């Protein structure tokens, strides 16, 4: 892989951010709104509930981590959509650029923007609502890594779907995190779900993260074996997503989809 070609994909996106505040604002604005909304909800729940249960880490922490996954996925897909919107595939893929380099560039920019968003979320949640993950220390890293890999896998999968089905299908991609969230047990233990939903949950790496986090913030031992399953699953999904994108790319090269990519031409 060529660092220069990967750098070109990253640089293209940085140029877009530099010249367009409207692209930078959503990286922080939606995150801030989510944190404020859920922060006040958890504060209210702490006031009216006399159970002694602290809702701040349970709910606000969950929102923060779920937003992190969503931002990673969107960071990858947004960079890809820039090429969809500017109909740039022919220009890029008629060059020495490899698909692995293109995807690496998308992932790098997705990682950068989501880490900036995470930093803003953590700062706001700590300053406004006293939420801190510092008590978890280095143990937080594996949780974030599983979400991180899952977000990248979802982003690459989404890019593959849009490459195959055309720009209009981007509306299938945006709701993916929302569709997955009931199964991922973001706000509740997956044991409250019906049996068939629990089966789906067990196939989703984030469900292991949120189950583990709930135990962690409750002061119980973190189930590392369960988190390891989530980690293995997230790596498997990432590999599958890359293979899926590569297969779609080969299809696009075979059928001429890359050369005539537009909403009208894609069936």
């Amino acid at each position: 892989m060529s660092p220069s070609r990967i750098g070109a994909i990253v640089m293209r996106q940085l140029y877009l951010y530099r010249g367009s505040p409207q692209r930078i604002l959503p990286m922080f604005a939606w995150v801030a709104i989510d944190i404020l909304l859920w922060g006040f909800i958890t504060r209210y729940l702490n006031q009216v509930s006399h159970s002694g249960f602290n809702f701040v880490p349970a709910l606000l922490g969950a929102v923060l981590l779920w937003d992190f996954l969503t931002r990673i996925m969107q960071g990858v897909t947004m960079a890809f959509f820039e090429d969809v919107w500017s109909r740039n595939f022919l220009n890029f893929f008629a060059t020495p650029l490899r698909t692995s380099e293109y995807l690496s560039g998308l992932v790098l920019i997705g990682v950068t923007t989501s880490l900036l968003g995470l930093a803003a979320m953590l700062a706001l949640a700590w300053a406004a609502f006293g939420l801190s993950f510092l008590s978890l220390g280095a143990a937080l890293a594996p949780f974030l890594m599983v979400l991180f890999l899952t977000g990248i896998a979802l982003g690459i999968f989404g890019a593959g779907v849009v490459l195959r089905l055309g720009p209009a299908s981007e509306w299938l991609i945006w709701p993916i995190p929302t569709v997955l969230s009931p199964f991922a047990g973001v706000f509740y233990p997956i044991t409250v779900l019906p049996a068939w939903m629990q089966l789906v949950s067990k196939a989703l790496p984030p469900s292991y993260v949120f189950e583990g986090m709930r135990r962690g913030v409750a002061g119980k031992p973190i189930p590392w074996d369960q988190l390891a399953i989530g980690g293995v699953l997230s790596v498997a999904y990432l590999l599958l997503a890359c293979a899926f994108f590569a297969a779609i790319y080969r299809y696009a090269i075979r059928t001429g989809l890359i050369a005539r990519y537009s909403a009208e031409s894609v069936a």
Partner: protein
Amino acid sequence: MTAVAPILSVQNLCKSFGALKAVDGVGFDVAPGEIVGLLGPNGAGKTTTINMILGVLAPTSGRIEIEGVDLKTQRTRALQSTNFAAVYAPLPGNLTVEQNLTVFGMIYSVKNLRARIDELLADFDLARFRRTKAGVLSSGEQTRLSLAKAMINRPRLLLLDEPTASIDPSTARDIRAAISAYVDAGHCGVLWTSHNMYEVEAVCDRVMFLSRGKVLLQGDPRQLTKDHGAASLDDLFVQVAHEALHDASLVPPPPVAAP
């Protein structure tokens, strides 16, 4: 005298879309310092052929070699010394002229990129648009930018699909001269499609007439005109396109009527 190795070698190239044979057994070479015109009516298979040479469309069969490198097995290496400009592939309008050239220069790992960009901005009269977004340039200026991008890696093989469409005659003449000079100096080979027969006659050393995916005629554009008793290349184009249309062997069978 030793034979010069071709920059582009296309052998028995075929591309089918279902029952439609868009390109059917096309073969040709482009030598260093040669500009080859690929002519034909709309739908003849010119752009399909160019897309296959650019690696964005897989041939059904056949072989493409760029400087002796097989495109199918060593795509990245083969395309390192190739570039293209086409009217239907404008550069991202939300990047400035300089940013576009920087991104594509990085993709081709161009050495001394800053200097190369300055050189191209001067050559294509784009210096005053350095910080202008490509999307707000006139169509002629966008074409010049596409050509500057096509030159960024000093390609050995240049594919130009109607490169001077939407450019005024004066600028088109300058651009033809610039490309011809580049070809003469750098031993680059060019495959050039155009519907402007005056332009083809002015710049091409050799032309190929394509119709329904097959090469019907090829040779020196001036000699072909004489040999076929045509008044001009324009007339020869019309004549060949008309004959191909009425040649039963080239016309696909009529569709079977529904029962």
